[in-house]
């Protein structure tokens, strides 16, 4: 941190006077951390060794060519991808970290990202000290993404069903029913929020807050209805016709979202990043009470974000067994303790309204979110290898 703030001249002086004390840069050297180096050019793929003991392997791939390249570790059949790193620009170095059991493999560079690539045989020998290396990470990864895809489909269907119910009540002017349904139905959205947000065209129509818009943009979707139901002072309520338009738009666009969500394909990194993003949503929108400006139902969203993240984590957890036990333990504990914190605010089937929480309570929740978010941000790197 300090280093970044110091001007160049001071840095230079600092470096001189510190010589001999520590060498912070050595660890960044690829050769120093046991990595296998790969020099990839436009017509060659030179791997520093063609054999390594089983376990976690790290390839440091340097693109010395002029084309964008990719690097793959392929299974013995030459087809199944054990690990890959894409988008290595000219002059750029990237790491591939994989867990590989004993067996025969191919290392392949793909300059220009076309064709079968420049391949060479790569042998993984028995793990050191006889340690067991899981042979079926690919199967575990597939199970994880299949489970999560089923969850997304289910939530998206429930979201559609609930949206229809809410829209009907809202359009009909049944405020009591609409207000009850609002936070409950939104939980289906919030559980899969990164998925919903990945549809860049639908997300602003359905979930934009007023501040997200610029002049000329139409204010539609959930938060438009929220403002009308929990009308702030001086606000002019919508007519029945206007409510019907908002309601119709919500149903129509959620139908489209559901259709697309049924066809989505996932990868382990998407799951893990999605879990982290859900906690980011909590940190930036819910803990601050900004998501539900008028209804103050932020804790419903909070709960749903947390549940969605926990599902993704639990689907991925088998990949942590034996390789990242400490991280796994930490995540399990922190998910449980944040849930416990949240449970303290349950009222009936719902929660306290966010504006009823004291400053101290909000601070405690924020600290709980940070405590979980930090280890959760390490999940992706742990499951993709």
């Amino acid at each position, binding site marked *: 941190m300090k280093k970044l703030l110091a001007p160049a001249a001071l840095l230079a*002086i600092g470096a001189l006077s510190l010589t001999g004390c520590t060498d912070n840069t050595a660890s960044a050297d690829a050769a120093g951390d046991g990595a296998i180096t790969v020099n990839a050019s436009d017509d060659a793929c030179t791997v520093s060794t063609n054999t390594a003991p089983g376990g976690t392997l790290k390839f440091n791939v340097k693109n010395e060519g002029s084309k964008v390249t990719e690097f793959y570790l392929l299974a013995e059949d030459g087809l199944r991808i054990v690990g890959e790193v894409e*988008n290595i620009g*000219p002059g750029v170095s990237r790491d591939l970290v994989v867990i590989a059991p004993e067996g025969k493999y191919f290392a392949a560079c793909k300059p220009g990202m076309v064709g079968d690539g420049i391949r060479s045989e790569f042998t993984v020998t028995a793990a050191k000290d006889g340690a067991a290396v899981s042979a079926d990470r690919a199967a575990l990864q597939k199970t994880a993404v299949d489970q999560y895809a089923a969850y997304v489909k289910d939530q998206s269907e429930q979201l559609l069903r609930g949206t229809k119910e809410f829209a009907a009540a809202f359009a009909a002017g049944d405020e009591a029913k609409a207000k009850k349904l609002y936070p409950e139905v939104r939980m289906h959205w919030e559980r899969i929020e990164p998925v919903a947000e990945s549809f860049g065209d639908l997300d602003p129509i359905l979930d934009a807050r007023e501040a997200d818009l610029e002049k000329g943009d139409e204010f539609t979707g959930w938060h438009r209805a929220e403002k009308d139901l929990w009308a702030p002072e001086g606000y002019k309520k919508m007519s029945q016709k206007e409510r019907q338009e908002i309601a119709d738009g919500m149903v129509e666009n959620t139908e489209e979202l559901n259709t697309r969500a049924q066809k989505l394909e996932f990868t382990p990194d998407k799951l893990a990043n999605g879990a982290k993003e859900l906690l980011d949503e909590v940190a930036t929108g819910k803990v601050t009470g900004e998501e539900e400006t008028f209804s103050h139902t932020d804790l419903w969203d909070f709960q749903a974000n947390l549940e969605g993240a926990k599902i993704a984590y639990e689907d991925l957890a088998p990949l942590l067994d034996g390789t990242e036990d400490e991280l796994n333990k930490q995540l399990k504990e922190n998910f449980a303790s944040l849930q416990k914190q949240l449970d303290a605010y349950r009222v009936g089937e719902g929660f306290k309204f966010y504006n009823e929480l004291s400053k101290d309570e909000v601070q405690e929740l924020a600290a709980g979110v940070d405590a979980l978010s*930090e280890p959760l941000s390490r999940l992706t790197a742990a499951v993709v290898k």
Partner: protein
Amino acid sequence: MAEKSSPVFSRRLLLSSAGAGGAGLAVGALAHAAFGSQLEPAAKKVADVVDCHGQHQAGITTAAQDRMHIVGFDVVTEDRAKLVAMLKEWTAAIEAMTQGKEVGEGGAASGSYDAPPTDTGEAVGLSAANLTVTIGFGRSLFTDGKKSRFGLEGKLPEALIELPHFSGDMVEEERSHGDIVVQACANDPQVAVHAIRNLSRIGFGTVRVRWSQIGFGRTSKTTSDQQTPRNLFGFKDGTANILADDAEALDKHVWVGEGATDQPWMVGGTYMVARRIRMQIEVWDRAALREQENVVGRIKSTGAPLSGGEEFTAPDLAMAGSNGPIIPADSHVAMLHPSKHNGVQMLRRGFNYTDGSDGLGRLDAGLFFIAFVVDARTHFVPLQKAMSANDAMNEYLRHTSSGLYAVPPGITQGQYLGQQLFES
């Protein structure tokens, strides 16, 4: 520099001439401790003084200093003569302070024993530290929305627009706008704060502080021999900035030319855009390096574009990657590249800031964005629109203030800042 007869007091003490630039503070301090009075005062003359006179105001193309204190004032009087008198007094104070001298006749400690010192004193013993003070006028100085103020009918430049609300803006009015902006930059934070403090004091009764902000580290370079600094995202910022020696780019994108304005008094001036952009620091820190680099469009370590090469290699926005362009289309680099905006560029001169923590245990920190442009309507609004709509970086940003100011041209000795406006 050691004038003894002058009623204006020099604050100067020893400071290595090698200490020009940011290193001055630390090196100077070390030198002080190590060599004491061995340094010859004559050898250190004017090494870190920036002349406040010239065709343009200082603090724009001046080699970006490391520290900043910027303040927005509202004028509390409707008396034009009083306002002009203050601008004259400010100009005299700025002329003194930028030369490392004390403010007012008695300075910090040589006036009447029964009167408060005219200079507040905290910069005594410090050099000028490359202090520059740059002033600009907000739209609200010219008009209260209905009628004009201070007899400035017909003087409001068309380009001094009200900045629109951009998607996602969470602008706090009490941190934004203002009738007059004063930017003090120096390589010593105490010197910058001293300048603003003394100008505010002179202004009491004429202006009141509406907002103020301290920046602790520059986030751009304005000369080719400065190293590109890093912002609080940890990335090099301002790699493609307009530099002080690029006269052609400055004339095209920064300085208001004769044919380019409806207001002759603005010729030689520019427009300052100032926006406090809070970064979601903690969320960013938890983002994978892959995400960080894809958001920025550059390699974090070297600053090179993702399309390869080194820091100053031009980004190849068309280079294909495994899934779409290797520099993602929604990355910051791709989104704001001049090729997407009719070739327009800004002179950026922002600063990292932190205002401690918010109530939730997070850093209230980010970038105090400052840019100088010939016309915000062509050089800022379209870019900010594109950015707020589609830039992947938005997720980590929150714009909490906004301001646009007409920065009048520079002055010669004997003139006062803003004279072109009030006497044209």
